[in-house]
C-alpha cells in the first residue's frame, strides 16, 4: 500500500519471510540445551527443525520405514562409539578466533572425533599439544589451494589430511580472508602479510587433472604415511564421476559437502546460486562408487547443515559413514548467526580476531561435546526404531527411507526416485578396511634405500651423505625421509645435516615438503612440482657436468616448482617451467628464468631470477620480494602490476641481499651465469628490478619504524597493522 518494497529476508532473516533453519528459537534452544546439558531441550530444538522446517530441505520430504520390532535402545551402538565418526567443519584459524578454533579441537579430541584445522595453518605450540591431556591439535589438517602454513610439521601432526577441492557454499572459489582479519598473529600462522586480504586461488596450482590430484594424494601419503588422505568435494551434478576418480587416485575418505554449509564470508552470489544440497551429491557419489565397484575403497563423509540426529540418520542411509558439523558447534559456542563473519565484528568473539571482541567469547568445549553426544543419542533412538544395532548396518539402507505421506501437492511433484529407487540393493556398501588402496610405499627409494641408509645417522643426530641414482618414476623423492626427520627433530635441524646427492632425472614432487637439515642435490633435471611445500630443506639442481648445452638457456625443472613452499632454499641452475613459486610464503629461491605466472599469490620469501620471466608475473603477490634480472626490458610488460611495484635496487641492504644470494647460488650449483654476474656486478646491478607488493612494503616499513621507536617486534607489528587498516 505504501509502495515500499517488502524485505526479502534471505541473507538477513525477517519474520514472515524466507524460512531459516537457524532462527531465534532454534538458536536459543540449541545454546541453552548444550550449555545446561539438557537433552530434553535439545529434543525440543530438533523437534522444531524436523517438524516445522520440513519444507526447507530435501530430507524434509522423507520419512522412515520404522521396524515392526525395534532394537532395544541399550543394544544400539554406544554414544562413545558413534561420536568417533563425527567431525567439525574446516573453519580456518583466521576465519574464526583462536578461542573458538581451540574449543572445537579440544572438544573433538575429548570425544575421540576429529576437528579440522581449515586452511589457515596451526601454530607450532598447538601442534605440540598432540597426545597430551589438553590436546588442542586438530586431527584433520587441511591442504587447500592457499597452502597456508602447510609445513612438514603441520602435515605430520595429522591423523587425516584433507585436500579441499572446493567448498560447499562456493564451489569453484578459494577461501577468502579479508585483510582486516589478517591480524599479525594470523599472518604469522599463515606466513603472510598482516592486513593484506588472502584470497586462495580457485584451483590448486598443482592440480589440473585427476592425475595431478593423484600425485598430491601420493605426496601427502609420503609426507605422513599414518594419516588417512581425504578429498573434499562438493555436492554438484557429476560429483559421482569425480568421486570415482578420487577413489581410484587413492583417497581413503571422500567428503561430499552440501551448499547449505556456512562460509560466512563467501560472496552472496555464490551462497545463493552455487552448489547443491548434500542429499543429492551424497546419493550420487554413493551410487556411482557402487556401480564402479569402488565403494568399499573409500569412506564417504558428508556435511553442510547436519543439525539433528534425524539428519545424520538420513545421511547414513544415503551412504555416509562419517559426518561433519560446523555451524551448529559454533552456535553452541555463542554464534548467533550474525552473518558478519567477513567484517571482523562478530560480537560473540567467534568469527573475529579483534582482541576486544574475543574477550566476549563464552563458549566451552563441553558445549560442543554435549552437542555431539546429543546428536549421537538422538541418532541411537532412530537406529533403535529402525531396528538396527550399529551405524555400519544403517549405511546405504535406503529401504529404510520413503517419501513422506503427508506431502503438500506441490511437494509431491518433487521426484526423489533417483535417490530412493536406485536399484542398487545388494552390493557391498561400505568401506572395507581390509582392502585399502595400495600406495606401494615399500617400493619407493625412500623406504628401500634412503631411510635405511640414514637410519643410524638419524637416530644419533649425526650428519651423513649418500649418493643415489634416480629416475623420473621416483615420485615424491625424499618426502618420506623428510617426514622421519620432522617427526624426530622438527624442521630446524642445521642446514646440510643430511645430504642426498642424486643423479638422473627426478620424478614429480622431487623433495616435496622436506624439512630443514635435509639437502637434496640433483645432477640432471626434474619433473613438475619440484620442491612442493618446501619446509626448510635445501634443494640444488644443475645439469650433469657432461652436458654440453648452456644451463641458463634450458628448462631444467618442470611446472609448479616450490608451490606452497614455506621455508628453505632452492638453487636452480637453469630455467623453471610455469607457475614457479606460486604461493611461496617463505622460501628463498634462485633460478635462471621462469615461465608464465611466476610468483603468483606469493606472500613471503625471496626469489631471484637471473633471466627472463613469462607473462603475468607476480599476479596476486602480497608478500615477499622478487629480484629479476631484466636484461631485455620485457619485465614491465609481463608484470601483473595490480598489487606490486617495480623499482630499481637502490637500498644497500637489497643489494647486499641480492649479491649474497647469487654467491650462494654459484657455490651450490656452479652456475656460469651467476659467476658472470658476480664478476661484473656493478654493471649488472642497474639491470635488476625489485618487485615488491605495495602493502607489504608499507607494513614492513611501518614495522621497522615502530622498532626504531623502541617497540618490540610483536607490538611493532600490531601497531603497523592498525595503521594499515585505519588508512583504508
Amino acid at each position, binding site marked *: *500500500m*505504501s509502495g*515500499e518494497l517488502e*524485505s526479502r529476508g534471505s*541473507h*538477513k*532473516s*525477517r*519474520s*514472515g519471510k524466507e524460512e*531459516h533453519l*537457524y*532462527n*531465534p*528459537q532454534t*538458536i*536459543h534452544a540449541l545454546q*541453552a540445551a548444550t550449555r*545446561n546439558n539438557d537433552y530434553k531441550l535439545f529434543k525440543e530444538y530438533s523437534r522444531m527443525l524436523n517438524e516445522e522446517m520440513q519444507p526447507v530441505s530435501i530430507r524434509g520430504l522423507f520419512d522412515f520405514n520404522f521396524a515392526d520390532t525395534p532394537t532395544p535402545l541399550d543394544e544400539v551402538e554406544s554414544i562413545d562409539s558413534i561420536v568417533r565418526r563425527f567431525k567439525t567443519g574446516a573453519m580456518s584459524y583466521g576465519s574464526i578466533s583462536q578461542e573458538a578454533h581451540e574449543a572445537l579441537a579440544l572438544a573433538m579430541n575429548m570425544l575421540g572425533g576429529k576437528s579440522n584445522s581449515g586452511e589457515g595453518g596451526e601454530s607450532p605450540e598447538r601442534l605440540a599439544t598432540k597426545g597430551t591431556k589438553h590436546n588442542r591439535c586438530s586431527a584433520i589438517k587441511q591442504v587447500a589451494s592457499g597452502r597456508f602454513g602447510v609445513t612438514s610439521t603441520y602435515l605430520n601432526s595429522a591423523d587425516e589430511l584433507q585436500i579441499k577441492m572446493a567448498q560447499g557454499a562456493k564451489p569453484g572459489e578459494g577461501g577468502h580472508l579479508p585483510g582486516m582479519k589478517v591480524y599479525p598473529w594470523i599472518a604469522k600462522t599463515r606466513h603472510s602479510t598482516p592486513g593484506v586480504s588472502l584470497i586462495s586461488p580457485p584451483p590448486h596450482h598443482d592440480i589440473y587433472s585427476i592425475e595431478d590430484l593423484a600425485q598430491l594424494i601420493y605426496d601427502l601419503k609420503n609426507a605422513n604415511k599414518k594419516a588417512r588422505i581425504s578429498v573434499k568435494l562438493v555436492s554438484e551434478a557429476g560429483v559421482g564421476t569425480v568421486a570415482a576418480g578420487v577413489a581410484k587416485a587413492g583417497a581413503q575418505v571422500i567428503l561430499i559437502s552440501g551448499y547449505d554449509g556456512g562460509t560466512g564470508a563467501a560472496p552472496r552470489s555464490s551462497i545463493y546460486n552455487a552448489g547443491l544440497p548434500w542429499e543429492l551429491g551424497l546419493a550420487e557419489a554413493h551410487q556411482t562408487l557402487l556401480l564402479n565397484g569402488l565403494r568399499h575403497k573409500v569412506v564417504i563423509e558428508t556435511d553442510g547443515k547436519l543439525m539433528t540426529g534425524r539428519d545424520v540418520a538420513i545421511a547414513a542411509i544415503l551412504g555416509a559413514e562419517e559426518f561433519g558439523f560446523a555451524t551448529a558447534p559454533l552456535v553452541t559456542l555463542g554464534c*548467533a*548467526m*550474525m*552473518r*558478519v563473519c567477513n*567484517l571482523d*565484528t562478530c*560480537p*560473540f568473539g567467534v568469527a573475529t580476531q579483534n582482541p*576486544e*571482541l574475543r574477550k*566476549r567469547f563464552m563458549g566451552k568445549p563441553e558445549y560442543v561435546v554435549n552437542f555431539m553426544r546429543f546428536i549421537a543419542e538422538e541418532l541411537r533412538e532412530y537406529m533403535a526404531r529402525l531396528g538396527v544395532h550399529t551405524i555400519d548396518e544403517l549405511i546405504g539402507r535406503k529401504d529404510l527411507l520413503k517419501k513422506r505421506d503427508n506431502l503438500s501437492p506441490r511437494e509431491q511433484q518433487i521426484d526423489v526416485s533417483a535417490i530412493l529407487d536406485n536399484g542398487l540393493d545388494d552390493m557391498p556398501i561400505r568401506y572395507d578396511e581390509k582392502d585399502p588402496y595400495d600406495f606401494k610405499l615399500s617400493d619407493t627409494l625412500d623406504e628401500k634405500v634412503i631411510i635405511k641408509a640414514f637410519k643410524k645417522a638419524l637416530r644419533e643426530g649425526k650428519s651423513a651423505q649418500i649418493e643415489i641414482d634416480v629416475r623420473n618414476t621416483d615420485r615424491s623423492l625424499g618426502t618420506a625421509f623428510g617426514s622421519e626427520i620432522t617427526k624426530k627433530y622438527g624442521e630446524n635441524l642445521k642446514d646440510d645435516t643430511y645430504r642426498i646427492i642424486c643423479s638422473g632425472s627426478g620424478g614429480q614432487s622431487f623433495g616435496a615438503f622436506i624439512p630443514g637439515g635435509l639437502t637434496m642435490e640433483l645432477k640432471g633435471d626434474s619433473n613438475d612440482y619440484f620442491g612442493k611445500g618446501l619446509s626448510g630443506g635445501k634443494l640444488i639442481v644443475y645439469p650433469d657436468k657432461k652436458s654440453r648445452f648452456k644451463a641458463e638457456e634450458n628448462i631444467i625443472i618442470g611446472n609448479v616448482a616450490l608451490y606452497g613452499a614455506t621455508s628453505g632454499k632452492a638453487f636452480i641452475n637453469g630455467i623453471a617451467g610455469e607457475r614457479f613459486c606460486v604461493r611461496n610464503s617463505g622460501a628463498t629461491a634462485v633460478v635462471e628464468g621462469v615461465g608464465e605466472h611466476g610468483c603468483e599469490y606469493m606472500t613471503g620469501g625471496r626469489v631471484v631470477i637471473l633471466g627472463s620471466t613469462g607473462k603475468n608475473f607476480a599476479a596476486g603477490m602480497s608478500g615477499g620480494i622478487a629480484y629479476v634480472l631484466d636484461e631485455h626490458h620485457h619485465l614491465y610488460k609481463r608484470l601483473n602490476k595490480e598489487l606490486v611495484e617495480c623499482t630499481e635496487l637502490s637500498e644497500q641492504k637489497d643489494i647486499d641481499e641480492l649479491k649474497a644470494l647469487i654467491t650462494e647460488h654459484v657455490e651450490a650449483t656452479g652456475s656460469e651465469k651467476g659467476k658472470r654476474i658476480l664478476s661484473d656486478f656493478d654493471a649488472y646491478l642497474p639491470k635488476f628490478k625489485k618487485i615488491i607488493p605495495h602493502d607489504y612494503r608499507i607494513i614492513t616499513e611501518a614495522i621497522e619504524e615502530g622498532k626504531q621507536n623502541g617497540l618490540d617486534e610483536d607490538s611493532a607489528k600490531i601497531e603497523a597493522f592498525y595503521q594499515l587498516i585505519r588508512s583504508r
Partner: protein
Amino acid sequence: MGNPNGFMEYKRQDNPAYTVEERIKHYNEFHTPISETERKHQGERCMHCGVPFCQAGLPISGMVSGCPLNNLIPEWNNLVSLGAWKQAYNRLKMTNSFPEFTSRVCPALCEKACTCGANGDPVTVRANEYDIIETAYQEGWAAPQPPKQRTGKKIAVVGSGPSGLAAADQLNRRGHCVTVYERSDRVGGLLMYGIPNMKLEKHIIERKINVMEAEGVTFKTGVNVGVDISAEELLSQYDRVILACGASHPRDIAVEGREADGVYYAVDFLKSTTKAMLDNGLKVGTYISAKDKNVLIIGGGDTGNDCVGTCVRHGAKSVIQLEMMPKLPDTRAENNPWPEWPRVCKTDYGQEEAAAVYGSDPRVYQTTVKKLISDENGKLKQAVLVKLNAERDEATGRLKMVPIDGSETTVDVDLLLIAAGFLGSESYVTDAFCVALDSRTNVQTETGSHQTSVDRVFTAGDMHRGQSLVVWAIREGSLRELSQSD
C-alpha cells in the same frame, strides 16, 4: 548497511530525563531528545544481525522475545544512522500503525532481545522509533492519506483502544468505511485513560485521531454498545463488527473489609486524574485524590507503578506498593541469559520518584493484604499486611505464595488502589453478541483466527488474547490473519 563497527565506537545514550524534583511538578512527558547527530550514532550501533532477535516476536523460554509487530528494526536503524528519516518512516509504518504510541509506552521487547544487549547495552530502538515518528509529523509525512477507492463495505469497530484503532486504521486503508464506537467520552481506551499523561501525552492520541478522521474513519464516543445500541442494530447497519473492547474486567482482592470507602481499582483512579486534567486542569474535588493520604497499592506491575507516579504528583503522604513475588535480581541470573526475557528488577519512573520524595523504594515484596480496617463511617483506616513465603506446589510444580503465620503488621491507609491485573472481557458486550468465550472469558476463536462463534463478528486485542501489551493489541488489531474481511 552502515558502519559495522558502530556498536564498538558508540555507547548507548538514553534520552535524558528531567530530575524528579522538576518532573513531579507536572503531568507531562519528562524526557528530552538527543541531537540528530547523536541519534544517528545510536542508529549506527545496530549490528544488522543475520538473525535479528529484535524483530522476531517469538516465544523463548516461555516469554516473547522481540517485537510482536515484527517491526523492520535493523532496516530503520540503518536509515536513521544515514539520516534518511523519510525512508525510515516509510519502513516503520509498514508494520506499525501507531509508532507514536509504541515509542512512548512499549516496554521495548525489541531492546530486551537486541543482540547488542548480549554483551553490553542494547540499541535505543524505542527512542530511535520516537525520533522517526516525531520527525515524520514535523515534516508532514504523517499527514492524512485517505484511501483512493472505497469498497462500499461498512465495518463497526467496538472499542477505541489500541487494537480497535489498529483495526480501524487497517480496514480504512483497505477502503472500507469504518465507524469506531467508544463508550467513554474520549477516544483511546486504555491509551487515553489507562496510561498516565506522563507516559503518553493525550494530545498525541488526539493528533493521530485527527489524522484518522481526515482519512475517513468515523468515531462515535459516549456510545456503549450493548447498552446504548444493541448488537442486532449494529449487525443490521454494518457488514462486519469487530469487537475490540479489551480485557477490562479488573481482578479484585478478596479480603475482609474490601467494601471500605477508599478502595479503588487502579484504572478508575488513573482515569479520574487524566479526565480531570483534560476537563478542568485538575480542579480539586473532581478526581480521586491521594493528596496527604497514606496510599497502599496492590500489584507490582506497570499499572502499580503508574499509580505510584500519579500519587507522588498528587502529593500523597506516603506510598507503599505491595508485590507478592520475591524481588528479582538486579542483573540477569546465570540461568536467564540473553535472548530470554530478562527477569530482573526494573525500577520505573514512579518508584524512582517515590524513592526520591519519601526516601525509600515504595515496593514491599512477598507481602499482601490480609484485612482492611475501616473507621466508624466506613472509611478505610488501616490495612493488615502479611508476609508470604514461596513454596513449590507438589501437584503442579509451580511456585505458590503462602502466608506466614504471625508475620502480620498493621499500617495506616487512607487510599487503597488495586492494580492486580485484569481477568478478561466484560460480559455485557459478549452477552449482547452471544459470542462464545474460553475459560478465561476471552472471546473464543480458532487459533490464528479472529472469527468469533457468531457470523460476521470478529474480535481483536485483549478481548481476544487476554490482557497484554499495547504492542500486542496493535498486532491483534492489524488483523494480519483476518483475510475474511477483504
